């Protein structure tokens, strides 16, 4: 009869665990993406950073800090701050990423592409203005893909894994036009792609730094944190309609406040 008991106990344990494992199938992702030109600083010192994959990305976890000459970035347990608190140094540009709801195996892509124009010499010797539209895959862009690669089963034991795919394409230089001294030739696009997995503890910020990953000298600093929410995108123990950003550190509220409804397609925010 001990075999019966063991079987019943095992089945009961598996069935009792099912709702727990299936409960967390969506998380809220807060992300801040800062872009800067490394040439604006004489030196960059990272402390508390560890390599992330085989590419240029490095992961920063609490306690960590980056020193950009006289400017500093400090990653705390539940927040981060710059040299003067929430004041972003002028060398940095924030890419406004709205709060995202991240489902398992439902990637979310944040894309900021720009068109670029150039001159091209025609056969008759004249110059013609050409453009690489922003919709073209060859246009300069910053594209970050967020994905939860693992099911709730694994995430329940090892933190919430967020897979970040970085796709950066920038103008590294321009082709020279014979007889034209201006730097207006066809742009040569430098690209970098890296994907890395970040195991996030809920409500704690993690940072990923990409220092000059391509010839353009552009660097990225991505901050992410995940919050557990229910299927409707509401935080636990909160009444419907509660603004999710109410949990955020006030100094971090740079993006839109409302979480967009999770559905496929393309969205545009400004």
């Amino acid at each position, binding site marked *: 009869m001990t075999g019966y008991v063991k079987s019943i106990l095992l089945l009961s344990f598996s069935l009792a665990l099912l709702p727990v494992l299936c409960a967390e199938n969506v998380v809220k992702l807060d992300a801040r993406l800062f872009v800067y030109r490394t040439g604006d600083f004489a030196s960059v010192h990272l402390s508390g950073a560890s390599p992330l994959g085989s590419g240029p990305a490095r992961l920063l976890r609490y306690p960590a800090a980056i020193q950009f000459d006289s400017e500093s970035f400090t990653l705390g347990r539940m927040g981060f701050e710059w040299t003067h608190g929430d004041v972003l140094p002028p060398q940095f540009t924030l890419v406004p990423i709205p709060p995202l709801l991240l489902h398992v195996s439902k990637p979310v*892509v944040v894309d900021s592409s720009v068109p670029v124009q150039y001159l091209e010499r025609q056969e008759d010797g004249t110059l013609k203005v050409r453009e690489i539209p922003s919709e073209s895959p060859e246009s300069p862009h910053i594209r970050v893909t967020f994905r939860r690669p693992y099911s709730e089963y694994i995430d329940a034991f090892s933190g919430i894994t967020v897979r970040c795919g970085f796709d950066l394409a920038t103008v590294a230089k321009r082709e020279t036009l014979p007889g034209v001294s201006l730097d207006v030739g066809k742009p040569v696009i430098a690209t970098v792609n890296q994907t890395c997995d970040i195991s996030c503890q809920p409500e704690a910020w993690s940072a990923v730094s990409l220092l000059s990953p391509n010839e353009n000298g552009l660097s990225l600093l991505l901050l992410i944190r995940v919050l557990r929410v229910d299927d409707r995108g509401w935080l636990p123990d909160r009444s419907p309609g509660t603004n999710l950003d109410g949990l955020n550190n006030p100094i971090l509220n740079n993006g839109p406040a409302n979480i967009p409804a999770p559905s496929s397609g393309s969205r545009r925010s400004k």
Partner: protein
Amino acid sequence: MDEFEHYLRKRHLAVPSVRLDRRIESTLAAPPAQMQPAASFSSALARWSLGAGMGIAAGVALLLMSPRKAENEEPIVYRIEASSQLRKLLISPRSRTASQPLPFVVRSQNP
């Protein structure tokens, strides 16, 4: 002669026992079915139930760990209009003054 020596002298020495040899012989010669009682139907059922339970649990775990269906893979795309500063960063080639490699200093911290 102390008490311990006296105790040892009183102990019987081990001697070969014919009766014990016969008993061991008969035990070893007996067929296995007679040595152990036949496995009862209930215990066999319990073992099979345990195996089935473990199989179900493993199946549930694999189901939870397996990636979702392909139709869920269509990404949600947010197109963010680049600010003028970001546009400049993306389009402008690296400045000539910053052509020197930047001296990065990285102090790694192993978890």
